[in-house]
Each structure stands twice: as C-alpha cells, then as structure tokens.
C-alpha cells in the first residue's frame, strides 16, 4: 500500500513522460550532438568537431537563407503587428457586426497553410491569375510575383536609373509575395490577441483621459500603447518565432529543388529541410538547426531585456 502511494504519481506521468523523452528531449539533445558529427545516408562516420559549423561559414547558400529569413522576419513582424493593432482598435467597444468581422478575419488562421498556399499560387499566377488580371485591367504592368527573383527596391528604383545591388536590392518580389500571404494568414490571430488585450484595459483610464481633454492620439500614446504593452510584447515574440519557422508556404508556393527563383525564397528552415531530407546530410542539417535555435533563443532574451524595461504591467 505504501509503495503504491509512493510510486503512484509516476504512473500518472509515465505515458506523457515517455513520449516527451523519446520524441522531444532525445531528438533535441541529438540535434546538438549530431551537429558535431558526420552523419549522412551511409550512417554515422564519427565526430568531426566544429567542421559542420565551419562549412556553414563558407556556404553561400546558407548565408543566402539567413539573409532571406532576416528579410522575411523584418517584413512580416512589423506588418503583422500594425495591421492587427489597427483592426483591433476599430473592433473594440460595442460595434455592430463585431463577431461577424472576427469570424471572417479568423478564417485564414484555421485554414491549413498548404491549402492557402495552393490558392495563393493560383492568385499570383503570372499568366492567368486574378491579381495580374486586375492589374492589367487597371492599366498596370503584370508582375511575375512568385517567379520574380529581382529585389523589390531594385524594381522600384530602376525606372529612376538607380540600380541597387546585393542586400540593398531588397527581398525578391517572390519573397515579398510569401510575406504578404504570411501576414494575411496571421492577421486574424493577432487581431484577436490585441482585442483581448484592449478589452483588459480598464475603462476608467479612458474616462479620466476624456476629462483631461486628451485627443485620440494622446489617448493612444499615453494610455492604450503603454497598457497594451504586455500583449504587444507577446505578439512580437510569437510572430518572430512563427516567421522563423515558416516552411509550408515556401515549400508549396516555391517548390523544391530551387527555393524560389534563384534561391531567393530559400529560408533557413527550407534549407535545413533540404539538407536533411534531400541529401540526408543530418550532421550539417543539425548544425543549421542549432544555429537557428540559438538565434531564436537570443532574440527571445534580447526582446525580454528590452521589453522588461518598457512593458508596463498594471
């Protein structure tokens, strides 16, 4: 009887623990150790120290994937913050049709990334897709969208005779097309988060501001923005992580082998996927995984540091 009570709790936790240990902890730790090994289709060939990391440093495709990921995150995160914040500000308080709007905005969130990608591939189709048809009907020049390797700054500035090169050319239109879909898909989720955050702000603050004669902008700056900061901070971290993880959109809309036109949509997760499962280069793919994880970890720490000073918890 006594033994039963002592061991009892462990029986409750055991099923979950086995799954967590075998399919989470073990592979997570393995990706660290595997990054120091030569492990490919032929199996394990021994430890190689930092060779995989050294290879990363001189791998142009890898750095391209880092740059593309940075572009992607820098594009998606601010847009995915500002648009939902704006929509949530409109939706707060009593408003006719509020739940109707919310339902519509939320639809892309629950729809699978694969189906959404198939649909947007068609919308972006240069020859027959609806987007180019609208542009042509309005008298504009049709674009190549997902097949356009040129950077958007290059495209915008070249009519003026300016030809930015390299990083300055900006993300390719193909990558920007993916960013648009990503923002479109996450808008509803972030709007709902902001809405919940806004509804948590006590109405008395606004009444006080009104008595003080504060305008719309003043109220936003001094009341809404600081009091909303925990939500903003959470949305910021979540969208950063989600953007770094983006895979299905890239894989379906700009399918392998390329990673988009001239590799311009080749983001880090896509690249590590290719190394791991097309080449079965597990060692090298693991080094990329570790690098990805360290970036995410340090971003979270940095964001927490910065936010720690600014976030206002009431």
């Amino acid at each position, binding site marked *: 009887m006594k033994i039963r009570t002592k061991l009892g709790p462990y029986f409750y936790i055991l099923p*979950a623990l086995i799954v967590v240990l075998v399919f989470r902890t073990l592979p*997570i730790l393995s990706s660290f150790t595997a990054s120091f090994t030569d492990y490919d289709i032929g199996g394990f060939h021994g430890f190689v120290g930092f060779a995989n990391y050294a290879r990363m440093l001189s791998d142009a495709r890898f750095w391209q994937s880092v740059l593309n990921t940075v572009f992607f995150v820098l594009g998606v995160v601010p847009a995915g913050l500002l648009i939902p914040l704006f929509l949530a500000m409109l939706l707060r308080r009593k408003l006719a049709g509020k739940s109707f709007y919310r339902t519509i905005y939320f639809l892309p969130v629950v729809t699978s990334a*694969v189906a959404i990608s198939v649909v947007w591939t068609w919308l972006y189709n240069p020859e027959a897709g609806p987007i180019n048809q609208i542009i042509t009907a309005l008298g504009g020049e049709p674009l190549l969208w997902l097949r356009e390797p040129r950077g958007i700054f290059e495209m915008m500035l070249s009519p003026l005779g300016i030809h930015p090169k390299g990083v300055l050319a900006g993300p390719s239109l193909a990558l920007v097309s993916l960013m648009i879909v990503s923002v479109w898909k996450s808008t509803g989720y972030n709007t709902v988060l902001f809405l919940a955050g806004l509804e948590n702000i006590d109405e008395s603050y606004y009444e006080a501001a009104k008595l003080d004669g504060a305008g719309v902008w003043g109220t936003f700056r001094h009341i809404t923005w600081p009091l909303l900061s925990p939500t903003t901070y959470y949305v910021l971290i979540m969208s950063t992580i989600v953007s770094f993880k983006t895979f299905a959109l890239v894989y379906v809309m700009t399918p392998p082998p390329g990673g988009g036109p001239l590799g311009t949509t080749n983001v880090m997760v896509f690249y590590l996927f290719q190394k791991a499962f097309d080449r079965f280069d*597990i060692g090298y793919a693991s080094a990329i*995984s570790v690098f990805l*994880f360290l970036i995410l970890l340090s971003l979270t720490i940095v964001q927490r540091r910065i936010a720690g000073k600014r976030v206002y918890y009431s």
Partner: protein
Amino acid sequence: MMPVNPKTAAMSITKHFFLILGGIVMLLPFLWMVNTSLQQGGLGNYVEAWTKVPFGTYFLNTLFVTLLTVAGVLVTASLAAYSFATMKYRGRNFLFLLFLSTMMVPQPVYLAPSYVILAKLGWINTYMALIIPWTTNVFSIFLLRQHFKTIPRTLYEAAILDGCGRLKYLWKVVLPLSKPVIVTVILFNIIGSWNSFMWPLVVTHSENLRVLQVGLSYFNQEQSSNFELLMAASTFSTIPLVILFLFVQKRIVASYTRSGIKD
C-alpha cells in the same frame, strides 16, 4: 432611441469602411478559390479531383490520425496534468520544467534527429510515426494543470473520505469540472493535427499513408497548371475545418486567446 450624434455616426462609418475593406481582403482568396473551382467543368471538377488521386484515402488517414492523436493527448495530458497539479512527489518540479523546456524548441530544429529515431524504431512510413509522437502535448498539459490547480483541495479530501480512489476522483470530479479547458485542448489538437504538414511529409513515403495536407501538396505539384482541379481540391480540403470553425467559432477564438494571454 438615443439621438444620433453626427460625429459618432461619421466615426462609426469610417470604422466600418476599414473593417469591410479588411474583410474583403480576408475573404477574396476564398471566394476566388470556390469560383475558380467551378469554372469549365463545374461541379465535375470536384469529382475529377477527388478521383484523380485517392483523396478519399488521404481524408481517412487524416481523420484516423487526428482521432487517435487527440484521444492520446486527452489521456496522457490529463493524467500528467493531474499529477503535476495535485500530487507531491520527488522530481515533480524538475519534470515539469523538463516538459516546458521542450516547448521552447521549434519542431524544425529537431526534425532530422526525430527521423533517425523513427528509423531506428522501424516506424518510418507507418501510422505509428504519424500518431505516437503526437499522443502527448506539453501545452495541453500546461493548460490542464493550470485549471486543475483551481479545483479546491477540500473536494478531494471529502471524496477520499467517501472512499473514492485517486483515478476515480480524476474521472468523476476533476474532468467534469474542467469541460471548457478540455474542449480547448480537443479543438487545439484537432486543428494542429489536421493541418500538420512538415512531419507527415517527412515520415511517410507511400501514397496509401498520405494525409490530406501531404496529398494536396503532391497534387499541387502534379497538376500545377490545372487550376480548376487544384481549387476544387483546396476547397474540399478546407471545408471540414471551416465548418468546425463556424460551429464552435466562439470557443476556438477563445481558445486561441487563452493560449495567448497567460495569467
């Protein structure tokens, strides 16, 4: 009726203008999808897409995997959460942190080693690979634990005095008191399982094991210029979750928010 203030009316019109604009942007891709799917062949496109590749099999696979995964999560997560929330034992906090720490690492990071582990188990290209690794979910454990902790301990003591066992107490008292959280857990895991793509893409190869998302992605590559068929396939792949969403819309939105803002 309150007198209508012209300033408020103008404000409200401006609000609706932007909200409708946003709504159009959100809906248009779906409308185009359905519209294109009905071009040329009409409803026949649906039949053709459905029969061209075994979408029936893909659906059944997804359904099967989703059902077993969700059932697994419910069992393992409520047992684990129950022990974390109500029992005192050595290593409890350590185990809880160990569980939580796995949430910090995104799936792509450990995908390659997971494949190797599955290969060693001989599970590559089996239902086991699709189901077993997802029969628990740390986030669900976390949600359930938070809720179980709010149930007063006096209830437990009273039940024990009445000769109720610990497992029976979980089943008869704790779970019935936790229905909203359980619904959240179920919905979350249904959506997650139904939409998961990267994992099934990696761990299965044969066509008869393909889940819906993987099947749709291959169909997209094979029929890349046959837009009517692609849109028909996208439509029937999306419909089940859209219907689920429309039925339990409030619950789903609330679940997402609950997960977002932790107390």
